[in-house]
């Protein structure tokens, strides 16, 4: 991992507000040209991490660099090469959206280009309105248009689509993928899982100020269970005996039809077992990010760790 490809590097980052430890241990890297998804529930420390990365907050301990430079001491240098959209966008009420976009661009030596106009049209933003009349979604659009038309190397988005409608979300995703194609790095914090699932190469899960898992989505799928619905010729009543199988529910209408979850690493021996019973129909659903997410939430509330839950429908 320690190559020149690392754009953002966090090592045991900690941040306390008085006695309250907001960040306990944040460790992850964002590599060049990748979209890194930063997910976690509200209050887990996503925004605090990002604001520390931007040098707005001063870290208590740990290491944090962007482009190899310290995020606190060299913040101005770093800021030349990044674009940022905060989670809650607040704008000066008596400036218009257009004025604010241009101001943001000028402050980083960028210009209002054709691309800016295209983005304004794409996001369907009325730039002549004063910011006080904007809804949350419109304020976010202002920040997004400014960020997307900024020429940066690292883009940081903090829950950027929380106020946008699905149509605009779609445009946002297109634009992010476009950036990725041109070799830019993106840090995307979100709790909208489908978004992260669609766009991110790697993800980091944060809970209570700690990164509890990082890796590709595929890496993490091993940690969860696959949902299987199967119909067999012979009876599969002894399915429950297998320790890798959980939450079995049998169909009342169709005999020998069952739905169950299986630990992903044991999928092979279950399939062998089912084959011996003669498979009539089989449907398998890979774990979604949602399952992953729920699994980690549940862990925190159960504290047992062994009792893993799956989504059931």
């Amino acid at each position, binding site marked *: 991992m320690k190559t020149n490809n690392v754009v953002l590097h966090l090592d045991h980052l900690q941040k306390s507000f008085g006695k309250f430890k907001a960040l306990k241990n944040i460790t992850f890297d964002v590599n060049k040209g990748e979209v890194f998804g930063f997910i976690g529930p509200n209050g887990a420390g996503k925004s605090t991490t990002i604001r520390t990365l931007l040098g*707005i907050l001063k870290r208590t301990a740990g290491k944090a660099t962007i482009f190899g430079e310290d995020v606190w001491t060299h913040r101005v240098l770093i800021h030349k090469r990044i674009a940022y959209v*905060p989670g809650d*966008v607040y704008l000066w009420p008596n400036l218009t959206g257009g004025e604010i976009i241009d101001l943001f661009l*000028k402050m980083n030596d960028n210009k*209002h280009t054709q691309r800016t106009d295209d983005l304004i049209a794409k996001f369907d933003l009325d730039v*002549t*309105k004063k910011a006080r009349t904007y809804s949350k979604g419109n304020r976010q659009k202002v920040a997004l248009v400014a960020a997307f038309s900024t020429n940066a190397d690292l883009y940081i988005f903090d829950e950027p689509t929380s106020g946008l409608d699905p149509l605009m979300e779609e445009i946002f995703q297109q634009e992010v993928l476009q950036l990725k194609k041109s070799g830019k790095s993106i840090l995307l914090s979100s709790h909208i899982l489908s978004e992260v699932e669609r766009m991110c190469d790697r993800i980091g899960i944060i809970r209570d100020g700690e990164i509890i898992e990082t890796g590709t989505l595929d890496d993490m799928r091993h940690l969860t269970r696959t949902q299987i619905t199967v119909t067999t010729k012979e009876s599969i009543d002894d399915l429950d005996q297998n320790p890798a199988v959980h939450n079995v529910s049998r169909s009342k209408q169709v005999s020998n039809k069952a739905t169950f979850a299986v630990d992903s690493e044991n999928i092979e021996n279950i399939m062998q077992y089912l084959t011996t019973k003669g498979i009539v129909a089989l449907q398998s659903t890979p774990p979604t990010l949602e399952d992953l997410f729920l699994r980690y939430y549940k862990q925190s509330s159960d504290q047992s760790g062994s009792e893993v839950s799956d989504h059931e429908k």
Partner: protein
Amino acid sequence: MKNNFDKTGFLTRFGIRRDSWSLITWIICLAGLMASVAFKFEGIYGTPSSISAIENTLKSPAMVALFGKFDIPAKQSADVFGTEMIVFMALMMVIMNIYFAIRGSRSEEDSGLTELLVSHSIGRMSNIMAISLELLFINIIVGMLFGLGIQFSGMPGVNANGAWLLGMVLAAVGLFFGMVALFSAQIADNSRNATTISYGIFGLFYILRMYTDLKRPSTTWFNPFGMIEKISAFHKNDWRPVIILVVLSFVVWLLVLFTSQHRDIGSGLIATRPGRAKAGFLLRGPISLIMKLHRTSMIVWTVGLFILGTTYGSIFNTISDILKTNPTMQTVFGKAAVNAANHQILLNFVAVITIVCVGLAAIPAIQVMNSLKGDQTKGYLENIFAKKVSRLHVFISYLITAIIAGELSFFASLMGLYVAGNAVLTHGKLDFQTYIHVFIAYSPAILTSVAMAAFLVGIWPKGTLISWAYVFYGIYSMYLGSLLKLPDWAKKFSAFGWANKVPVHAVNYGYFSVLMIIMAVLIIIGIWGYQRRDLS
């Protein structure tokens, strides 16, 4: 009908709890100020000679301009108290009421809280009703504390009727301007404009009062702010101003109710116009941004202080005429006036008036500096701090704008004095150079106030109220200081007391340099702290 006011009681209690700390601070400060002056008053103006001296002083145009015109005979301490304190305390009451009225109405709407509230089962008028009741509550409490404080002060000549009349007329005038502020909150569509409109209306009445007091005192009756001078406390005890003000407050309140039912939440009667689609050439970085944000307010303050200056300047001829025959003026202006020629007295007057001007000019300056904290709390700066703009750059931008806002409006007030004063004077005009000296001598008061604000924003942002306390103390100690015979050190506690009475004396560049050094140190520490702390 009940439905319209549903949950009013709950909202009122909620509002009072929300404002509890500010309420307590204001109430203690105002009631404490009034009571402490009342208790001390016999010591200041207890003897017949000191009373007759101050009586003549109070009849001079300069004092009429500041404190109002009274026709009660000053025989006892209480008479002097009633005339000296009323206009100043009314000023404080108005400031307090505008503050709470805007905070409870338009600010709540700005932050979206009102929207959240009305989605619940509360009556259509409950919001307005709640803040109105809160204002009524504050004014009655403060008015009662005033009444009690004065009644039991033991001042010679005090009686219960007069004491309570004083308290209640101050409460009534406060309530009236509170309602005016509530009305402004319906007209404007953001709290800053609502505050500006409220102060604009108040300023108009204040200046009109000064003018009618000097020219035709009987017409002051038509002025809601001026009529408080007509109560004749401890003599005729005329309660009519109280009744009129309460009725007027009620009428304005009905207007507030009416307009509030005929507009959308979050908008005002004056709609916001669409603006430009692209930033102008000038809007390109922190300094130009902050200048643009405060442009309107800077213009309003500059024009306002220029008008105030011209109003004071326009009575220059009257001053030299009357002061010539009134040697007792020295109680207020110091010994310098004893051997005074007209010119000297005029210079003295300029020195006193300048205190008012410089105190007012410090207000926009501190407002700008403190908005660095406000803008950050509101999240406006979040994006700026992610740009390649250093914290130093942002800080300095606010600092420079603050200094310009203060110095510009101060300069405008002096120019008002210069232009209008020389227009009415037939001989012994004050030259431009004099005003430049005044400007140099009093500027440190503004600059140290800004530096104090910069220091606090940088080091201890929770304490930004202290910079306001500093300015209010400065104005108080100089506005009322001489009349209350405050000790010298109390006046020299703030930079306002170190101006060396320019233009009576020459500018003391020693004091000036020391104050500049203090200013620089405060600013440097502020910047040092700002570079190192969390911005949250």
